[in-house]
């Protein structure tokens, strides 16, 4: 029962791309065609399941302090395996994915699942978790790839045996959707739709909830926010007349954001202090 849950949570409820907002690079880069999206999804799923199983098996052997490099090496090994397999048996997919195939190594979905799940759970649960997350990733890529291909090129599954020409004659394909700009746009709209349908509270800041780099990101924000605030204050002092109406609105916003920033900064400071003490 609970195993079933580990599998299904990745499909929709905790979809790595659309809900956890992880693995943006491949999501944007290779979704110009639905077929590429499936190829990428399948490759990533394979790596995800294998690395989850191996990391779950090794979880008691890997020392905590060097766990991230260890995970990356395991993942890179499986990525090389996939690269060689695709090159041998599916050269068209290998060519289509190009540089993004080796870059699965640094896909934060895989590292994120290793850190969040596989290093804490048993082998069976980890494998199912990897499979569910992988299929969820593939689904998201497929949806975005389909939208972009149908609107941008007017075809669906181009390059395969069952290619369909979708756009009727009265409509020109909109090349914009195949361009990089279209990738950002469609992903943004799809995430907004998911938010709307699920009535989910919008994620705080930029999401990245399950990203292994989250703490570093927050500390960067906190460190950068201090000088930025000073600059804002300076600017306000220098031009007091210019923005009187805006200022009121700004203050309302600033009060809330400043507080959270301060809180985060405090937390980070506390943590580093603790670490230093430990050292």
């Amino acid at each position, binding site marked *: 029962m609970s195993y079933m849950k580990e599998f299904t949570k990745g499909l929709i409820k905790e979809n790595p791309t659309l809900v956890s907002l992880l693995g943006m690079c491949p999501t944007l880069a290779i979704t110009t065609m639905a077929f590429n999206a499936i190829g990428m999804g399948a490759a990533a799923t394979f790596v995800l399941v294998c690395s989850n199983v191996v990391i779950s098996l090794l979880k008691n052997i890997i020392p905590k302090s060097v766990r*991230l490099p260890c995970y990356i*090496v395991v993942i890179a090994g499986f990525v090389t395996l996939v690269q060689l397999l695709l090159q041998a048996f599916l050269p068209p997919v290998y060519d289509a994915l190009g*540089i993004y195939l080796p*870059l699965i190594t*640094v896909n934060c979905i895989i590292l994120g699942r290793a850190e969040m799940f596989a290093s804490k759970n048993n082998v069976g649960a980890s494998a199912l978790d990897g499979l569910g997350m992988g299929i969820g990733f593939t689904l998201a890529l497929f949806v975005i790839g389909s939208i972009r291909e149908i609107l941008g090129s007017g075809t669906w599954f181009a390059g395969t045996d069952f290619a369909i020409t979708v756009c009727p004659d009265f409509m020109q394909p909109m090349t914009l959707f195949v361009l990089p700009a279209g990738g*950002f*746009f469609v992903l943004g*709209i799809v995430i907004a739709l998911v938010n709307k349908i699920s009535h989910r509270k919008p994620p705080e800041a930029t999401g990245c909830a399950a990203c292994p780099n989250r703490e570093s990101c927050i500390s960067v924000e906190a460190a950068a926010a201090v000088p930025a605030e000073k600059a804002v204050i300076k600017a306000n002092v220098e031009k007091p007349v210019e923005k009187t109406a805006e200022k009121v609105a700004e203050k309302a916003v600033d009060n809330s954001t400043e507080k959270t920033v301060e809180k985060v900064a405090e937390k980070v400071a506390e943590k580093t202090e603790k670490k230093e003490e430990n050292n």
Partner: protein
Amino acid sequence: MELAKSMMIILLTGILTDNFVLSKFLGICPFLGVSKTTSGSLGMGCAVTAVMVIATAVTWPLYYFFLVPMGLSYLNTILFIMIIAVLVQLIEMVLKKYIPALYKTLGVYLPLITTNCAVLGVTILNLDNGYNFLESIVCALGGGIGFMVAMLIFSGVRGRLERCNVPSAFAGMPITLVAASIVSLSFVGFGGLVDGIFGIA
């Protein structure tokens, strides 16, 4: 002269026409994650540029003088990611010991760089394109500067975005992505620019 010209072409291509972030989608996570402030973007951009150039300078000779003669070129992904991880650690330690002032400003960004796909991306891209050593270094430099330019421009856009009243479904990531789409669209305008400047038919 010919050399300088070809270097300029690679550099400008990396910065403008084939921008790493906006047209190759490398390094999207930090692009969306730490671009909220101009100073953060500048720091991250500098750190990424430095690591990209150093990583290229180390991985290129290793690939051609170690992996290729041994017939192990298929191991490049594993070797490169390990080298990048070690390099980032090393840079962090050296900075901490010898240049504490620089460590204070750039130190927070370094842990984010190991898993940045722009760094691994540029080392692999250089091999795919068959660049020689000098070309690879220039390509890494161009990619890094392109990353920084994109981050800086986008931090300005996000500064505006923070003060806007966005529909709740769009709040956070979706509206950021739509804004990134418009910034990316503006870079489409640079298409053909490099060819035009250097008179390539």
